[in-house]
C-alpha cells in the first residue's frame, strides 16, 4: 500500500509530513506530493509539483487522481492535520471504490443542499486504487474548461466531489475521531482529524 501526503504552500511545514511518516510504525512506501521538499525525511519519496494547471492549497489533492500521477495500486492519503493513533497495517475497505470519511457528526438540513453548500464527507483520509479508471474520472472532470468555475463555486474538494455526483464509500465510523465534533468517544480511532481547527505540531503528538 502506498501512503501519501500532499504539502503545498507555507501553512504546514515538513515536520507535519515527517511526523505522519514516523507514526506509521511499519515498512511502507511513503510519498509526499509537494512544491517544496525541503526538510522532508530522507526516506520519504518526493513527488514534485506536476505543473500546470497551477492549483493552490488543498486543490492539489485532486491531482492524485490524475491517471498520470506516478502511483500505482492501493493508496492511502492522509491530511497533514491528522493525528495517527494506532494505524493497522491492513484497512478494512473496499479497494474497488474510493473511500472517504463520513462526517456523521454533521446533522441537519444545512448539509447536502443543492449547488455548492457544505457536505457530510471529508477527505482527511482517502483510500483508492490508483489504477482505477473511475477514480481518474474525478481529475478528468475537474480539469476541463469548467475548472476555474469549480474553483470559484466550491470551497474545497469535498464539496466538488459530492456535488459533482461522484460515487464513493465511507470508512467505518470507528476508524475516525473528529477533534472538533467528537470530544468524548468510547472507541479507539485509528486517526483523529483536526478539520476546521487551527492546529500546531504539538497538537498532533
Amino acid at each position: 500500500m502506498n501512503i501519501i501526503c500532499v504539502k503545498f504552500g507555507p501553512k504546514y511545514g515538513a515536520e507535519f509530513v515527517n511526523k505522519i511518516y514516523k507514526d506509521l510504525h511499519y515498512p511502507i512506501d511513503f510519498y509526499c506530493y509537494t512544491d517544496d521538499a525541503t526538510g522532508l525525511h530522507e526516506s520519504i519519496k518526493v513527488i514534485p509539483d506536476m505543473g500546470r494547471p497551477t492549483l493552490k492549497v488543498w486543490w492539489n489533492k485532486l491531482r492524485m487522481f490524475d491517471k498520470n500521477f506516478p502511483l500505482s495500486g492501493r493508496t492511502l492519503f492522509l491530511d497533514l492535520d491528522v493525528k495517527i493513533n494506532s494505524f493497522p497495517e491492513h484497512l478494512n475497505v473496499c479497494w474497488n471504490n474510493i473511500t472517504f470519511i463520513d462526517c456523521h457528526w454533521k446533522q441537519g438540513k444545512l448539509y447536502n443542499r443543492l449547488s455548492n453548500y457544505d457536505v457530510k464527507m471529508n477527505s482527511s483520509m482517502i483510500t483508492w486504487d490508483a489504477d482505477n479508471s473511475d477514480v481518474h474520472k474525478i481529475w478528468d472532470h475537474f480539469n476541463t474548461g469548467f475548472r476555474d468555475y469549480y474553483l470559484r463555486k466550491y470551497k474545497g474538494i469535498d464539496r466538488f466531489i459530492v456535488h459533482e455526483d461522484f460515487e464513493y464509500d465511507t470508512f467505518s465510523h470507528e476508524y475516525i475521531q473528529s477533534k472538533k465534533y467528537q470530544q468524548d468517544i468510547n472507541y479507539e480511532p485509528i486517526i483523529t482529524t483536526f478539520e476546521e481547527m487551527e492546529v500546531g505540531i504539538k497538537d498532533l503528538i
Partner: protein
Amino acid sequence: MYGVDDLYRIKDIVHSVDKNHWDSKKWLTDTLYKHYGYQTGKFYITGGWYGMMAYHIRQKWPLSKLNIISADCDPMCEEYAWELFGDCDIDFRTTDINDEEDLSEYSAIINTSCEHMEQEDLISIIEKKQKQTWIAFQTNNYKDINSHINCWPTAQV
C-alpha cells in the same frame, strides 16, 4: 453539476457585473480608446467570462466596423453571454487561448482575467501576436482567492 439548474451560476453572473468589475473594465476600455486611435479593427477578448468586457468595448466602438470576439474556455460563459449581450454585435465563443494558433488577424488582444491564467500562456499570446497588435492585459492583487493563480501586487510593472 446541476446543468441549467446550477444555482451558483446566478451568483457568478451577478458577480461578473458588480461595481468592481464594471469599473475596472470601463477603465480599460476608456484607456485603450485613448491609445488605439481607430474606429475599425478586430479585437479578441480572451477570458471574456459572461461578456461584459466585450459589452464595454462595443459601447465605446459602436460601429460594426470594429469586430469583437469574446472567448472563454467555460462553455456556459458563451451560453449566458449570448443571453446577456446577444444584441450587441459581439461574437461569443468557447475557446481556450492555447488553441488559438493564429493571432495575426487581431488589432488588439484584451485580457481582464490574467489572474486566472498561467504566466506562460500570457507570454505565449504576446509572442504569437503581430508586432502592431495592441495588448491590454489586466490582473489584480486578490491573491487569497483560490482561482487566482497569477496576481500582481501593485499597479507597477
